[in-house]
């Protein structure tokens, strides 16, 4: 398995995904209507003999240029990056999802291709449209059309997120429809839409402070507009957030009694509450100030709220991810990428004989640590790092329980791990047998002592489980075929 022992594998996905959400919400879904609105204001406010207020139009164009460059580079690549990183970190889950929801993604892809082409057209025809009023009005109309289109793209993606999050239905009904009918679909959409607008407004104001000449009338006007925009959307953000905040735990609880009930979730959830209140009030303060005293606003005033609303989106996504646990696909696959239905087999025989890559299949006193390492890789490494300095490292979580700096007690850990999913409901149950448990604990203990780290297959390569090599698999298959034949002839 691919593994990053310092950064943490999940964290890699999270970083890429959250960056993508910022850009998608703030610079596409929210930003395009904001820009179109401003472009229209330029035409409305222009003198009779002008197509548009050219200096104003240039300012709006510059803002769009920034958004265009960012969305078509970082935005597009982080979108692909989600696929790349998930393929590395969580191949079994994304592979399963693709097998089932291929069409949903294929449709999303078609919509997405169209959106990119539309954005290219909108941006690249801007300057040519300034030659006649008719062309300019058509360009603005196109802007509104694009705004609606990118909103629809988001609405579809939220549904896709919805079906991935919908925990109860994987085993029954695997259709995209239950992404739309999911109890958190509508609240999510109602919350994401104004939030995108809010982020766009704050970011737009930030860009104004950079591009518009200090002290100019135009700058004051642009900042005031941004203030109005923010003030118009913030109440909807608050309403959407309250709605979502109230509906989420109960909606999720109905489907699974898992992470939602846990204390760690409650912590995140409280943090989200403060972020909602904080981001909303700081935006209102900024917007009101911008409305009354637009000339006083400068870069420094805007950057703080800007970071705040970004942080707010980040924590929101973190909470949304958390409710999946302990599953990665509800009631089907745990976050360690092992299917729930295979657990009895692993419990009976241990997991190592069934892993494709491990050097140990029979645990002895001599190979205990190596076995523990392979078990760690196969059952813990998706969320925990081995190296004590890593993010969410395994030694850190145990020391948090048993006291920092104290040597870990193997007996305690052996007794704790098989029960941990009862208390920490976001943890999947330990899949292996007793011997494997002891090997794992011995390895964790050694990690604490040596502080060593665990390298992923991208550096060390793989060791093929002798039971799962082509030679032994085909031998086994031949044997069982013979067995079947025997049984048939006996009958």
């Amino acid at each position, binding site marked *: 398995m691919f593994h990053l022992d310092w950064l943490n594998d999940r964290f890699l996905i999270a970083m890429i995904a959250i960056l993508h959400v910022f850009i998608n919400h703030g610079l596409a879904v929210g930003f395009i209507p904001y820009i179109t609105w401003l472009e229209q204001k330029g035409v409305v406010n222009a003198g009779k003999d002008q197509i548009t207020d050219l200096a104003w139009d240039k300012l709006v164009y510059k803002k769009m240029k920034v958004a265009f460059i960012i969305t078509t*580079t970082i935005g597009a690549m982080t979108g692909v990056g989600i696929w790349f990183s998930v393929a590395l970190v969580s191949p079994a889950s994304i592979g399963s999802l693709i097998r089932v929801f291929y069409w949903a993604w294929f449709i999303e892809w078609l919509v997405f291709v169209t959106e990119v082409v539309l954005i290219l057209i909108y941006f690249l025809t801007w300057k040519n449209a300034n030659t006649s009023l008719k062309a300019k009005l058509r360009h603005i109309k196109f802007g509104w059309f694009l705004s609606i289109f990118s909103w629809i793209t988001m609405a579809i993606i939220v549904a896709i997120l919805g079906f991935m999050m919908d925990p109860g239905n994987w085993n029954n009904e695997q259709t995209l429809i239950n992404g739309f009918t999911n109890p958190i679909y509508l609240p999510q959409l109602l919350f994401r839409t104004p939030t995108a607008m809010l982020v766009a407004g704050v970011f737009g104001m930030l860009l104004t402070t950079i591009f518009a000449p200090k002290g100019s009338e135009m700058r004051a006007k642009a900042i005031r507009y941004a203030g109005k925009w923010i003030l118009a959307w913030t109440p909807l953000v608050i309403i959407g957030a309250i709605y979502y905040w109230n509906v989420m735990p109960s909606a999720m609880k109905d489907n699974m009694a898992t992470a939602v009930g846990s204390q760690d979730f409650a912590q995140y959830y409280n943090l989200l509450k403060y972020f909602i209140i904080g981001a909303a009030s700081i935006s209102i303060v900024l917007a009101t100030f911008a409305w009354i005293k637009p000339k006083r606003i400068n870069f420094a005033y805007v950057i703080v709220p800007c970071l705040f609303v970004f942080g707010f989106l980040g924590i929101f996504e973190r909470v949304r991810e958390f409710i999946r646990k302990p599953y990665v696909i509800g009631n089907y696959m745990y976050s360690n990428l092992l299917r729930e239905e295979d657990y009895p087999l692993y419990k009976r025989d241990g997991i190592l004989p069934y892993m494709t890559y491990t050097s140990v299949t029979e645990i002895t006193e001599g190979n205990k640590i190596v076995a523990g390492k392979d078990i760690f890789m196969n059952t813990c490494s998706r969320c925990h790092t081995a190296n004590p300095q890593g993010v969410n490292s395994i030694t850190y979580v145990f020391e948090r329980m048993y006291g920092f700096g104290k040597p870990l007690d193997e007996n305690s850990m052996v007794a704790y791990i098989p029960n941990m999913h009862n208390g920490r409901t976001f943890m999947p149950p330990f899949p292996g047998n007793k011997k494997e448990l002891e090997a794992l604990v011995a390895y964790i203990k050694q990690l604490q002592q040596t502080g060593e780290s665990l390298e992923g297959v991208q550096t060390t390569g793989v060791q093929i489980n002798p039971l799962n090599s082509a030679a032994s698999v085909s031998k086994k298959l031949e044997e069982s075929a013979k067995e079947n034949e025997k049984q048939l002839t006996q009958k």
Partner: protein
Amino acid sequence: MLLQINTPIPKDLPLDLPLPEWLLVTLLIVSFLLHIIFINLMVGGSIVTLWAQIKGLKNKEYDTFAHEIAKTITVNKSIAVVLGVAPLLSITTLYTIYFYSANALTGFAWIMIIPLVTIAFLLTYLHKYTWSTFENNRKLHIGIMALAVAIFLFIPLIFLTNVNLMMFPEKWGTVQGFLSALMLPNVFPRYLEFLGACIAVTGIFIVWYNNRKAYPIEEIYTSFTRYSIKKLGYSIATIGLSLQILFGVIVLFTLPSKGISYSVIGVMTIAGTLLAVALWFCYQTIVGEKDKIDLHFKKIALSIFAFMLVYGGSRQMYRHNSLEKHQELVADHTAEFQKLSKEARENPVEETIELEIDPSLGELAKGTAIFNQYCAACHKPNERLVGPPITEMVSIYKNDETGLVNWIKNPGKKRDDMPQMPGFPQLSNDELKELSKYILSIK
């Protein structure tokens, strides 16, 4: 060769393909074709821009030409990226374990694609939008493009290494990281053939781009004419096509034997012939008369397009041949595993944990053993560990054994500074009573 000891047989996901295999293969080939055309334009366009701009140091017209091509790169790259998602989706659906295994084995390089390509894209914008800014510092400006080109030249190697590695499960056990996977046979010839294709496709694109009626050549250039630029485009295409044929032949001869069949060779030869046709007409155009510059355009474009389709098809045939046997083994192995898993599911082994009972403890023996097994991980007699010490429990539940039993059965969150206790559904009422008896006996 396949059945050697170090060929791993992973298990596939026990889920059916969402579409019939032939349809997925068709979607893969067609969507990949669209993707690769724009990739060709992006990479080839950058190379041509860099070349023209260097030439532009002496002849200003080439600098203008470079600027015109540079403007198309940023558009083509956006389309290239978004078109790449569909083939990615299709190949992961069809060859899930193969593709993901190759990705993981070259993990760092694979994920580095994201930041590297992002940087290259930003560089192309920087380059495009600072054309007049760096009027007096042309070398620095060319340096920006050179950096972008270097990245664009490196990225295809990562992709090729991956799609190559996925075809050789027998090598997975020996590969250690990207560099060793890069050294597997056939990666470099395919890469060089690909670069040839980039240049060829870009050459044809230049011809088309400068042939559009609405494109005001006379306003843009002073000495270049529509004819001279189109001729330049054909010359670029000729160079690209020659490289393609040269390296294509090397690809064919260095192809590892495992997936080769007569039909693969046959289809690849057809593909090569199509290239030769395109090259012939390109050459005819360059040496031909001025008024016949457009005569062969359609033939050339069509034969290149047909080549891509046929060659793509032959690659798929080769991939299919190489993996067929392995896929059969994987399928059987998966079925076998599912059978075992089902058996185990239907006959669950009761988890009998043997308690270490010390008879000398008399009637507390069982309770002590249960405590040591389930509770001692978090609770100590006199001091706080994860949870409160036993003495504290005794002070709360003195003379209230039922209360303690109920708590252990269904614990809640009591203390702010300690984690919530897990429930113990596996313990029977009797066991819980024994346990409580023991706990309350501690003084």
